[in-house]
């Protein structure tokens, strides 16, 4: 479904990756590993179309990403380092806006999603009064809402407690079981059935140029 050919990216005269090839098909989790600063976030931003500073091809359903941007964005969920949660808005208002912005967030109602992430009872308080982990949960409520097949998650487990991490892992496993795809970065040992999990390390992809 998503295919990456001969990807090359350089930042501040440092080659992050060169001749990068990979493909992700329905029912797969792709874990991208690497040290801090190895370009994991950069790669995810490139894959989600948020960064143009690269060479090579990215194909979505065999077509170049640039040509199918709109349909790609209907089928892709991106949760970055910054969760896109407005501190001045309540969790409910935040989710209502996210659902407006991305129509593929339609699987549950707002209240159901907040219940899933354990924020039931907090729906009306402004997000700046919540803890870092709770704010993260507001952003991750998107995972419960999304019917998009492809998820691109940058460090989704940051600031979550053990129970939260286990719930998200179960959710990711369920998503790929249903034929979804997940590309994520994490330093955490993923607890997901082995046959669907693939990983590669960006530290090995530093070609000389």
């Amino acid at each position, binding site marked *: 479904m998503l295919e990456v050919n001969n990807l090359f990216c350089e930042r501040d005269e440092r080659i992050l990756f060169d001749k990068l090839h990979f493909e992700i098909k329905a029912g797969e989790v792709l874990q991208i590993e690497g040290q801090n600063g190895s370009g994991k976030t950069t790669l995810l931003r490139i894959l989600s179309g948020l960064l143009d500073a690269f060479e090579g091809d990215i194909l979505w359903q065999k077509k170049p990403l640039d040509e199918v941007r709109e349909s790609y964005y209907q089928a892709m969920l991106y949760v970055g380092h910054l969760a896109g949660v*407005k501190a001045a808005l309540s969790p409910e208002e935040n989710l209502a806006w996210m659902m407006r912005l991305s129509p593929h967030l339609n699987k549950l109602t707002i209240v159901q999603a907040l219940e899933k992430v354990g924020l039931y009872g907090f729906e009306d308080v402004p997000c700046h009064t919540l803890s870092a982990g709770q704010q993260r949960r507001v952003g991750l409520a998107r995972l419960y809402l999304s019917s998009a097949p492809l998820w691109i998650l940058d460090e989704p487990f940051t600031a979550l407690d053990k129970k939260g991490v286990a719930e998200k892992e179960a959710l990711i496993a369920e998503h790929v079981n249903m034929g979804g795809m997940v590309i994520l970065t994490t330093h955490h040992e993923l607890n997901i059935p082995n046959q669907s999990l693939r990983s590669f390390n960006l530290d090995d992809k530093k070609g000389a140029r």
Partner: protein
Amino acid sequence: MSFFFAAIKRDLLLSFRHRNDIVNPLAFFLMVAVMFPLGVSPEPKFLAEVAPGVIWVAALLASLLSVDSIFRTDYDDGSLEQMLVSPQPLLLLVLAKVFSHWLISGFCLALMSPLLALMLFLPSEGLFSLIISLLLGTPTLSLIGAIGAGLTVGLRKGGVLISLLVLPLYIPVLIFGAGTVQAGAMGMSIDGYLAILAAILVLSIMLTPFAIVAALKISIRG
């Protein structure tokens, strides 16, 4: 279209939660009218003469003061990224954001301007032309300012750069805006001035959204 109104509603809600966004430009606007007579001359005849220019310059700078915030907080908390990876049309979203900025800056300034007119002894014949020229001129300021805001949103300290980028483009609006009020205060016809302000506004509504979207994409995608 419902997406357009949802976006306006969100931005207005955010502005009301951060009262400073609304109060700062208005307080600045008012302070100029308070300080100017103290610093120059409290003579009513002199003030009446310079009032159109002073009020317009104050409105322009007040609008410029708040323009940086159009995309800043959305950039800082990742909301802007989410807007770029959304299938919703970015043009519509940008127009909605600029419109809500205008509602809390230009529109409020226009509503407050009669007070300044009174403080600066603007002849009462000029009052109507002052309000209408601000209503027609300030949306252009928000639209042009948003291009600067979009271009500098990726920079940590974009404030000064915005002024440099945007102020030259503000000048035609200032000239015709202040001209409208001057003509109105002297009891002359203001139709020609208003036509030009309206023409500039229509042109900006048509063209600037493309520039703003392009500016945002440059800032984010690099």
